[in-house]
């Protein structure tokens, strides 16, 4: 239970993250907090609670600069509920909603756009139907392509596609083919995630093994090379944008340690000095919020050293890297630099593509 109140956020206006922890069904690889099937709480009541929670922090966070509605699957909520959520971030310079291609139709897209969302993140995952079956997704490759085109038509100029690399049974060539078909749609943003086998998921109990290190590394580099050649900027380990202005401004907050308020079950918040998080339970979250209490279930105030380590762990994932002054082990810096994993540009230590591929290791070595 949090005892002290968060200080007012540093670094200008904050981001707002809204967690919608509901999915139509649970995908067998997913480790996110979400409840499958009919949501345990009506949409109106859920959004009422989100609104109350955001209001609890109004004094400290003021207006928001970015809004990101993620999940779970936000698109399982009805349009009016999503419109009310969009209003929580009214005035934000970027308002993203995640959606499942199977949940969208042209009418919905127009309504979402009208509600204020200007950025769409489509959970495409693959453009190969056999991959989609392995992943337990409810949509087909054709659904995804159609949804993407409809989004464009509805005015989502800034629409992004999420893909999973390393689906069991997927060859390297097959993935490259999926990637090429995605690029052919010319999305503003592409996220490519290596499949991770999360503990406690059906994939884990089935003993699904991710591709071997060498294959995964080769495919990572091939992905980056192809997207960069197609005009994308590889600005974070798993994220590509068609130019700096099309980077996810909201997600960049996480890597740059800028403040954000997270509302909804399991959401995390950061005010620049303190982190806190909500219970991974819809019931506990709802009970607290409806009683007018802050639902946060844990938190920590960071020491300067902890902040430094976070900068390393997060910043070294990004193209912009970290301030060289944060490096704790100069000998390691020289070694990694000589090995071509890092470059030093204008006082910043930036990972090369090969460095991004080993970002966790860079953080550890430079700590």
């Amino acid at each position, binding site marked *: 239970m949090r005892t002290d109140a968060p200080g007012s956020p540093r670094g200008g206006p904050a981001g707002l993250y809204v967690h919608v922890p509901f999915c139509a069904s649970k995908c067998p690889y997913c480790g996110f907090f979400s409840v499958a099937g009919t949501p345990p709480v009506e949409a109106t009541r859920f959004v009422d609670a989100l609104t109350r929670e955001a209001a609890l922090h109004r004094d400290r966070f003021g207006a928001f600069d970015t809004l990101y509605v993620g999940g779970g699957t936000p698109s399982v909520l009805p349009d009016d509920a999503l419109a009310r959520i969009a209003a929580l971030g009214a005035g934000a310079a970027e308002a993203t909603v995640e959606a499942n291609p199977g949940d969208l139709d042209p009418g919905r897209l127009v309504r979402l756009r009208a509600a204020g969302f200007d950025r769409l993140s489509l959970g495409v995952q693959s453009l190969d139907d056999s991959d989609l079956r392995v992943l337990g997704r409810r949509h087909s490759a054709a659904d995804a392509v159609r949804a993407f085109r409809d989004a464009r038509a509805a005015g989502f100029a800034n629409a992004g596609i999420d893909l999973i690399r390393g689906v069991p049974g997927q060859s390297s060539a097959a993935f490259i083919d999926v990637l090429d078909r995605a690029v052919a749609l010319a999305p503003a943003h592409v996220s490519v995630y290596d499949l991770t086998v999360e503990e406690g998921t059906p994939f884990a109990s089935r003993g699904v093994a991710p591709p071997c290190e060498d294959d*995964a590394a080769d495919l990572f580099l091939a992905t980056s090379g192809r997207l960069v050649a197609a005009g994308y900027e590889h600005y974070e380990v798993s994220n590509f944008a068609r130019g700096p202005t099309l980077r996810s401004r909201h997600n960049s907050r996480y890597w740059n340690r800028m403040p954000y308020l997270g509302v909804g079950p399991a959401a995390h918040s950061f005010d620049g000095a303190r982190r806190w998080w909500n219970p991974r339970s819809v019931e506990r979250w709802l009970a607290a919020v409806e009683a007018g209490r802050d639902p946060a279930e844990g938190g920590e105030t960071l020491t300067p050293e902890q902040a430094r380590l976070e900068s390393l762990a997060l910043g070294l994932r990004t193209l912009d890297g970290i301030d060289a002054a944060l490096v704790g082990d100069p000998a390691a810096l020289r070694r990694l630099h000589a090995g071509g994993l890092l470059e030093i540009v204008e006082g910043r230590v930036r990972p090369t593509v090969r460095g991004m591929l080993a970002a966790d290791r860079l953080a550890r070595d430079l700590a």
Partner: protein
Amino acid sequence: MDRGVRNFSIIAHIDHGKSTLADRLIQHGGLVPDRQFRDQILDSLDIERERGITIKSQTVNLAYRSRAGGTFELNLIDTPGHVDFSYEVSRALASCEGVLLVVDASQGVQAQTLANLYLAMEHDLAVIPVINKIDLPSADIDSTRLQIERDLGLDPDDAVHVSAKAGIGIDDLLEAIVARIPPPKGAQDDPLKALVFDAHYDPFRGAVVSCRVVDGVLRPGDTLRMMSTGAAFRVEEVGAFRIQRVARPELQAGDVGYVIAGMKTVADTRIGDTITLADRPAAEPLHGFKLMKPVVFSSLYPVLSEDYEALSDALEKYRLNDASLVYQKDSSVALGQGFRCGFLGLLHLEIVQERLEREFNQSLVLTAPSVEYHFTLNDGTVVRVDNPADYPDPSRIAKAEEPYIHATIWTPDRYMGAVMKICLERRAENPTYHCPLPGRLEMHFDVPLGEVVYDFYDRLKTVTQGYGSFDYELTDFRVSDLVRLDILVNGERVDALSMIVHREKARMRGLHACERLKDEIPRHQFKIPIQGAIGGTIIARETIPPFRKDVTAKCYGGDATRKRKLLERQKEGKKRMKMVGAVEIPQSAFVAVLKTDED
């Protein structure tokens, strides 16, 4: 004047029942309520209880009322039976007038029975032979009596028959003790002379010194003087060990007890020193103890280099309680500052390591145990080398010699084949066998000491499923083809991993080390060759491929805390890494190289 004091040690071969016999005597004296009694009560160290063996001598003071009605005060010292700890026995004997020489009736006279008898004879002590374990169905009292007569040259009619476990014959033994062990001589009115024969460090009170008062009297308030250093201390407390320390008004000539005198600096206490009084000093100190010659050597390093001072302090305090450990500063490029230590044997090495870790909270890295080799150089000089770092330039070596031991192994005979195999692997020579008892095999052979310091005992225990036991004595030095095996990581020699080995063994040991290092050293951004080399010749090789991918795919708002915590742990772990050139070697790698291959 006989004040009824009797000082004696219980000595025997390992496991013949010394500590159990001490239990019965302590119980007879009623020192500990039956309810609180536990077996081998004097084995108070955790390792002693876990391993079921005595490592430290322990003194206990008992009252006894004889059948004739005389009152006596007995100072009993239980001693270890294992050969590595015979220094404990010899120091205990310096405080006694007699010994109970215990012989297990089912095993008969064994190596340490004889060795300990000789020690007692050196000190001119009265010897009471005690035949123990007469309750066992396998007890053979007649042949044990015969061995006592024939092998020990003692009168079997003097032997007291007991079962320490069943408590048989204890009364007769107590009568024999008071009748046959002479009272201490010594003059109460002479200047004080007390022999320091043991000590331990108490964090609150400083050194607690065990001593035997030979002449004079020592009381709280006196100012004592240590004769070797001249340092003086005010006596705070004297007393006797009655499981707990029990304070007394004085210790007088003939008594065995302890002194506490605010000795906070460990260097002020020396085992073998003589305590006298500052205002009336004795003219001459007592004979101290002769120094023990270590036979096994290894360097100890702190896991974290910054803990060097703490290790230095721990060793100093530890040595108070184990005077047989010798050490001096050592340093290694890979491991930093440490200590080269000499041990009386392998078990001793193991015990020292464990006690430093458990009693003094040290985390240690040990280098491969070595023995002392003799090298005759071309110019005729002989150099003794116990540290591979001092291995002479091979072109200057005219002759190399290594120490041999005569080893004895006891095992159930069904393991004979397996035991033979590991002995031959170790270059054992001249094996002979006999069966002292049906089903039991006793093997004798000559083998280089250097071969058994390297995991031999573990292997023996493994192949005999724990039933095999092993004893040895040093015999001679023999000419041998010795080389220094170096381990190179990424082209750099890791000094702490070098070892002196027989040429024929070098390749196998080198491969083993390379394989272990390959498993322990994490991947780096570059390929790391690991090589075993003799001089410039590579004889073993492994390669650690570089890492390529080490990153989590997703990292968003909820992941920062978890990632940071992981990084905090990794940063701590990094401190435990030793740098060799550009390669980080975890401390565990140094340990792993010493481990046996499981087969």
